[in-house]
């Protein structure tokens, strides 16, 4: 297993290397060059020349690239133009917010999606089935930011049940040391702070989780439908096994394989969705930070973000592959 993981990581290196070359060339191809991007379009030629010298933009491309990749390997993602702080530091303080949001979205999507898809397959052609098919179709086609607007309007503005934006009520004055606000509240024993942070997570979490939910429902339904007619299920019935055992150990477990893949694939969607959801709910995670970076043309942040996401994405995919062999011992990670 360890060897397999090592091999997968080794395979990842050329991809990330290629990505870093593309990103490097991208910044160099910005209109007016990187110095203009740093200083703005009205910069004087002297200032441009000074920045070029300072950052080494006047040196040969190959030299520049090696400097860049060398820094990257040491974890130096550059400094944000907008905030003046190191990019990695900015991510570190905001990433927990996005992780919290993604966890809530995933719990919602899996917790409802798998049982609903399963129920739809069990009652194939009945009401549960039809409604789950229609609901999942709607879930797939509704843009996440539109859904966020609907939730915000109904639950926060119209009925005032949940907070409309932010991560926590600033009046609570909570202590933060991990930047996972809910966890912070639980660890310090500030229950009201944890609860408040949790309430702030519900609406964005539901909005973000709806599309993955719809997809998980569909895949679970299709997969269970296929599995429950398999020969080994018939054999298990013929053997006289209890229906409950057949359902949990034979059907559900075997049907889970494509579902796990799908959940893994959803994480890319979740990260993209987080950018949009965080914008609507003024939720201060990396998604919103990225949006500000787009507006301010903060290219070190954009560059760092893309590398960061690519690595994260690759790790997630590896974890998904490993989880296969746990669910289905027949599958050997290759």
């Amino acid at each position, binding site marked *: 297993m360890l060897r397999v993981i090592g091999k997968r990581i080794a395979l990842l290196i050329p991809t990330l290397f290629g990505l870093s070359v593309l990103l490097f060339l991208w910044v160099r191809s910005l209109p007016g060059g990187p110095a203009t991007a740093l200083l703005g379009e009205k910069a004087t030629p002297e200032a441009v020349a000074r920045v070029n010298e300072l950052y080494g933009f006047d040196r040969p491309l190959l030299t520049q690239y090696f400097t860049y990749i060398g820094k990257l390997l040491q974890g130096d993602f550059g400094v944000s133009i907008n905030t003046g702080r190191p990019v990695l530091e900015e991510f570190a303080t905001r990433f927990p917010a996005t992780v919290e949001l993604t966890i809530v979205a995933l719990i919602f999507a899996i917790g409802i999606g798998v049982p609903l898809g399963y129920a739809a397959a069990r009652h194939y052609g009945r009401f549960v089935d039809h409604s789950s098919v229609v609901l999942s179709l709607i879930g797939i*086609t509704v843009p*996440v930011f*539109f859904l966020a607007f609907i939730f915000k*309007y109904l639950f926060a503005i119209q009925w005032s049940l949940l907070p409309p934006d932010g991560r926590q009520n600033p009046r609570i004055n909570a202590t933060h040391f991990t930047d996972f606000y809910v966890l912070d509240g639980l660890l310090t024993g500030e229950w009201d702070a944890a609860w408040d942070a949790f309430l702030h997570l519900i609406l964005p979490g539901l909005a973000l989780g709806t599309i993955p939910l719809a997809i998980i429902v569909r895949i679970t339904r299709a997969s269970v439908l296929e599995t429950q007619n398999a020969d080994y299920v018939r054999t298990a019935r013929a053997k006289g096994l209890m229906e409950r055992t057949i359902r949990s150990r034979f059907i559900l477990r075997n049907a889970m394989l494509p579902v796990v893949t799908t959940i893994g694939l959803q994480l890319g969607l979740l*990260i*993209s969705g987080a950018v*949009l959801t965080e914008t609507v709910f003024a939720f201060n995670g990396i998604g919103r930070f990225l949006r500000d970076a787009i507006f301010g043309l903060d290219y070190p942040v954009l560059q760092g973000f893309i590398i960061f996401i690519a690595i994260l*994405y*690759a790790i997630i995919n590896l974890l998904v592959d490993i989880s296969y062999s746990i669910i289905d011992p027949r599958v050997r990670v290759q």
Partner: protein
Amino acid sequence: MSAILPPAVGGSAAPTDPAIETGGGTGLWKDAFLRLRRNPQAIAGAVIIGLFLLVALLAPILAPYGGNELPGRTEITPTTIPGPGEIGGYPLGLDRFGGDLLSKLIWGAQASLLIGVVSTALGLAGGMLLGVLAGGFGGWVDNVIMRFVDILLSVPNLLLAVSIAAILGQSPYAIMIAIGVSQIPIFARLLRSSMLSQRGSDYILAAQTLGLSRGTITMSHLLPNSMGPVIVQATLTLATAVIDAAALSFLGLGGGLPQAAEWGRMLTYAQAELSIAPQLAFLPGACIAITALGFTLLGESLREALDPKTRQK
């Protein structure tokens, strides 16, 4: 075979390659079309798309005002925005800038469909080029192209589009190119794997035996027979393209005036007025969702119609 029969009426959907034809006399595409016509889901999708297409084409006639016009500038105050039916002449009310909401929705259909179609066409063309090269040549060409595709796939689709649009600068073309490029990897992979699965077929072997050149075999035998999944994907991608285009302009990319008649942009500026004028967010949002639903319904029925597993029934 069918070559001696006179062409059937409406046979324009007939396949370009005799190899596609099945023994029954109906071609794959004609058969798929017949099946689509019987599928209510496909009809619903086609009707939705047809309606939006009509609205988009007839926008200059249907819309009471121009897309960027602000006829009701004097009617709005910082705290009030007239809603649907509240003042005469504006059936759906005004927006924050004083634009007529109905007109903007109509012009928005034009903008969204145009972006969706152009970007998908770009993605399809680029993806097919890479896919044909990779699937047709194999060997190191295949390797190089697929590694490049891997790099593009290492970043989630929408974020890839966001970063490309951010480089290209503030223009509507940036959005089209960004979304198009972000779709290239999917099409390239799909076409390549579809071509690889066709490669071992008997008709390819037959063509090779006849001494046809590799180029001819790839372009006129392998390619047409591998297009099924790609066309299904293209239909489904139109839905994502419309949503992604809205997402990009919602995030502030794509340039143009703040009051531009574009569904995603309308949502950006609806954010601040959500409590006093929710219709400004709901109507454009619903338009995006319905358009995407139309393409999804159509794409999924097409997939079913072309699927050999369900085709026999």
